[in-house]
């Protein structure tokens, strides 16, 4: 994994989440600005009548995912660089499990609901 740790002159070949070389306030300010923008847009389109109604939940989900991405990159300093492969792989597995859990639950329960709605034959 980390080959250059013993030599302070060389950059480390692994990075931990939350640490970034050359991390500074500008990084956090950009993240804060982007996150604020996405939040304000989310709250705006949830209350406005300017946007076509059925598209609003989809738009809100897309905005939320974008904002989570902004948080990951600017606050948790997850990058796609080679020093972050372990972090990104763990994240990808977490996202997979979350997706399976959410999509699986909704899918199964929707089918169950649908089957329960079937008109039952009346007993004499």
């Amino acid at each position, binding site marked *: *994994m*980390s*080959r250059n*740790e*013993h030599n*302070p002159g060389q950059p*480390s070949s*692994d*990075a*931990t*989440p*939350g*640490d970034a070389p050359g*991390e*500074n*306030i500008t*990084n*956090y*300010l950009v*993240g*804060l600005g982007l*996150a*604020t923008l996405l*939040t304000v847009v*989310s*709250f705006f389109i*949830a*209350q406005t009548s300017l946007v076509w*109604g059925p598209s*609003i*939940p989809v738009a*809100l*989900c897309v*905005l*939320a995912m974008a*904002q*989570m991405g902004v*948080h*990951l990159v600017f*606050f*948790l300093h997850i990058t796609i660089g080679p020093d972050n492969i*372990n*972090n990104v792989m*763990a*994240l990808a*597995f*977490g996202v997979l*499990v*979350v997706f399976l*859990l*959410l999509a*699986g*639950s*909704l899918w199964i*329960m929707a089918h169950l609901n649908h089957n329960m709605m079937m008109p039952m034959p009346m007993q004499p």
Partner: protein
Amino acid sequence: MTPADAALMDKADMADEKVDRSGHDDPHEAADVISKRIVVGYGFWIFLLSDIVMFSAFFATYAVLSGETAGGPTGRQLFDVRNVGIETACLLASSFTCGLASIGARLRSSRWFYGAMTATFLLGAGFLGLELREFTGMVAHGAGPTRSAFLSAFFALVGCHGLHVTAGLLWLLTMMAQVFAKGYRADILRRMLCFSLFWHALDIIWVALFTVVYLIGSIS
């Protein structure tokens, strides 16, 4: 102390703390070491991801039950989007000040560290106060967790996040006390790294929460 000095001390700390994975002192194996900060940070990252998986189970429960109001109040009637907006602003700002605190800790600047940690605590406590006010208001209007499956799922999900924030606030005070008592030691800084990861992760969960529960709940 200047930032350059602090950076040098950081390197010295990292050089002091090696976990030798090879288990012996062969100089050819010395290349195969890894700093403890990276091990701790990665381990805590795995914990956070499993915490998020747990939250996704609560989210799935909520999504399945969100329509089952049993004739009781719906989200549209209960949720105050303005209040949620203020809560979101508090938590987002506290995530930013938490970032400033971790920079302050790295630079060993006590003014930055204590100032930003205090701001983080106040914003987090403000968020928690608003959430508690919302909960007590709902219970007082007969919309407590026992009213319907929807409200049970709502209180479980939002309450679980609130408990995480409470734990985070206690951890925050502990970190301030530890830095005050023990200084910016390498082990204290590793705990500070874990705390900041925890606090940022709570904000990520809140993004999903205010979107799925409050915003989508208030339009449907």
